[in-house]
């Protein structure tokens, strides 16, 4: 692993999560064999059904035991296991460059971990970044070089701009025509309506969505005391804030927004994983993947 790539990901995390499979809840379209169910029947280890033999079928798939009992030819069909197409969408807007450590650093690490995990189980991983605009950096692929290229893109990518979630959906475009998984790594400091519209579009296109919402403690607790002039890093808007006076209402508003995001996620059957930058990433990933494995 190149040094710059090491900045984006801690190898210890990969060791921790590599034994945990990322299982897609829905069926996926893919070309390579993997852990995920496919809508096509064919080769595989999991039995699906029998059908009468027709001319042209591979004789190796004829179940001769059934022929012996019934004197009729039946072909055994199994569920075909396919690989998963995972789209990592990294929010690299200006708001992600906030906190200590910054949210973008945390998001890069999470993206790298997930990419490593997917590639480890022969899934195809792509990367799209939200900055000034949405930009497809790497199409999904499960090649051997995909991991290295993905890490380099993660490191090179600077924060800035304030692209919308809908831009990512437009950028991915045709790539979303096939079923797959979209993993969004963002702070989701957007209106709940925009998030709902984003999920609705993806749901209509048979995409399973996992959202890692990354926040820093300063955003949640507002641990300031002196009156300051708050400047929005994305829009440049300024507002006079007396934290002691605003704190309770801020927390209340923040909590309300958070509950709305949760509700929207549940409505569209998307996973919403909340991460604090002061919490270890490996624990969050292990907890989430373990829970997902159990509920599969």
């Amino acid at each position, binding site marked *: 692993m190149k040094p710059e790539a090491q900045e984006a990901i801690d190898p210890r995390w990969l060791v921790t999560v590599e034994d945990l499979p990322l299982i897609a809840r829905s069926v996926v379209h893919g070309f390579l064999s993997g852990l995920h169910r496919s809508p096509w029947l064919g080769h595989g280890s999991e039995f699906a059904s029998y059908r009468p033999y027709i001319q042209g079928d591979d004789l190796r798939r004829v179940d001769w035991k059934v022929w012996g009992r019934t004197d009729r030819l039946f072909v055994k069909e199994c569920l075909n296991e396919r690989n998963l197409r995972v789209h990592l969408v990294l929010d690299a807007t200006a708001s992600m460059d906030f906190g200590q450590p910054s949210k973008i650093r945390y998001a890069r690490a999470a993206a790298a971990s997930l990419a490593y995990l997917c590639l480890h189980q022969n899934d195809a991983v792509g990367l799209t970044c939200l900055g000034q605009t949405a930009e497809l950096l790497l199409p999904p692929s499960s090649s051997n070089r995909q991991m290295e290229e993905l890490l380099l893109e993660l490191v090179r990518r600077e924060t800035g701009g304030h692209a919308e979630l809908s831009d990512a959906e437009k950028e991915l475009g045709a790539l979303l025509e096939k079923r797959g998984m979209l993993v969004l790594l963002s702070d989701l400091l957007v209106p709940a309506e925009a998030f709902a519209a984003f999920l609705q579009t993806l749901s209509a296109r048979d995409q399973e969505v996992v959202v890692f919402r990354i926040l820093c403690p300063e955003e949640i607790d507002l641990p300031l005391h002196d009156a300051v002039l*708050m400047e929005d890093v994305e829009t440049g808007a300024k507002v006079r804030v007396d934290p002691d006076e605003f704190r309770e*209402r801020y927390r209340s508003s923040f909590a309300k927004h958070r509950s709305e995001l949760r509700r929207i996620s549940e409505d569209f059957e998307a996973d919403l994983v909340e991460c604090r930058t002061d919490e270890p990433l490996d624990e969050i990933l292990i907890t989430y993947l373990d829970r997902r494995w159990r509920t599969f």
Partner: protein
Amino acid sequence: MGLTFSQPWLLAALVAVGIPILIHLLRRRQLTIRRFSSVRFFLEMDQNARRRKRVRRWLLLSLRVLAIAFVVLALAGPHAGAGAGAKSDERLVIVLDQSISMSMDHRWARVAPILRREIASLNANHARVTIIGAGPTPKLLVDARRPSEAIAESKGFRPGFGTSDLTDALRRALSILSRYPAATRRSLRLVTDGQSSQKAQLTGRAIPRNCDFRIQTVTDQSARNAAVTSLKRIGPRQFEATLRNLSADGAVEGELAWRVNGAVARRDKLSLGAGAIMRSRFTLRAAPGGSRQLISALLQTQDALQADNCRSCVEDLEGPLRVVVAKSPAAPGLVPTEFFWVTALQSTAVEMYGTNQAKRAVRVVPVERLAQAIAEAHPDVVIISPTGEEPGSLAGVLESFLRAGGALILFSGDLAQRSLLMRQPWVPARLEALQDTSSWKGDGLQLDLSHREQGPLSVFDADSVRTFRSPAFSRRWTARLKEASQVAVRFEDGQPLVAVRHFEKGRCVWVNTSMDAEWTDWPRKRSFVPWVDGLVHFAAAKLGRKPQPFPSCAAGVAVTLSLPAAKGDRPVTLREWQGGKRFNAQIRKGRLEVPPLPPGLYEVRDHDERTISYLSSYVPVSESDPNVLSAQELAASIPRSPLPLTGGNFALSTGEHSSWIRQGLFLLVLGLLVAEMCYGNRLFA
């Protein structure tokens, strides 16, 4: 309606209104910019709240600016109304003496006409009258009212029970006058009875030269003016009153009433010529030392001023027993250095025997100065050990002392037989021979303790001192008791140790021992001090009667007194002794809270109408001054200040000084406080 200012130069201070604005602007600039991931939550927050906050900030700023502006305007002395500050305006402040002396005779009846006359003399259309009641503290009776209103309100005035502080009242009056514009005609009147004791008060306050000041006295200078000018104690139970007729002409016929605790004990008819001075003496019959009695002398005449004819004496009989001990080089045992019982007698060491009913005031004097000490200290008890070295005149002094009701204790040492004192008729026994009893028994001669419940040994009869053991005596006098003498304590063989004999109103107690260790081992025992204490109490107290101390206070003043009989918290009633007046009072933590009372003797009764103590309220000395001065004499004693009376000094208590400014300022300050409290902002924060 015009608005003028007494001190317009103060308006320059209005630039101070820029201070809060400056602070506001500076604080806005000092805000630090902090980059934040998203301010959408702050922006999404209740926009109304943000608007309210902005409004509130501006409101606070406005309030602060207005507060400073109002204070500056107020200090500049604004005057609203037509002709504000015009010379046609007139302000009159009357200081009315409300001391208890004003209630005597017909003095108060003369107050109303004087007030009416003074107020009616105001000519200005916008005249205002302020009346200050001069009591222990000045009280604003009428606050800048129109003349007609002031006259109507003055009908309800009453004199007080206490003293008056004219200095403080005049200071208050001048302070009020100084708030009016200098152009206004300002007058000050003092209405008083002109007691000469007020002269000292009046000299302490200079009146500015531009203030129209006059004194009106309510005393009739032509009236007969006789009074009791002093009352003092001249003996253990003897009192002397001095009466003077201060009238310029004419004799005073009347009656002097001596009262004990309010009850008339003796009446003397008398006639005092013009300018005459007369003394009258009174002897208290049965008052044990240490008790407290209210003695008063009241001169009752047909036309003398009642205020000046009563004197009370309550202090002279209060306090502890007074004991004078005569020491002599020939009788060292009486005041031995190794056991200074005199000190112990005054200390709380006696309390361990439960005998310290009241502390004793003990004074030790050389025997040659005993006569002088008796004259000065008026003791209740004299202790002496005769040695024959006493001055020859001492016997006569002691006889007078006994006749006046004093108690004499005689110890008899080795030299007692040589003393002339032991041959006096009032001594209970005649000494015969010295008897050495050291070989009487192994431990010496003991006391007969079978009848110790009475007499000096009664102090050892308490349950706590059942273990009292008799001291041993090794020497004594054989003596022959005189007629009418009684033995109070005996030796175990029946011979007297203590004998007592009444002489006139007093009693002489003879003790058949000395305090020397050669006579007895008692001084080395812990029971010795209680024994002497019991002896003193036995000699001084009338059998079957115990001292009843009670507190006293000056009339007309609310005070809190220590009341030994009071415990806990409870309401009580002060009932005038042999009178119908009742006053409610309160006992808190053993202390009696007394309201202002008229002079007299009061019973302190609890809710069961049970008398738990007495309380005397006396006329202050300053109010009993019989000498009255004319208005001219009083005025001559008041200095006139060369400095003029200032004008326009603002104060919130000013009467009709632009009331809207006062109310506005009050509401403004109130609003500012509420705003600061509600919004949690510090002033100028």
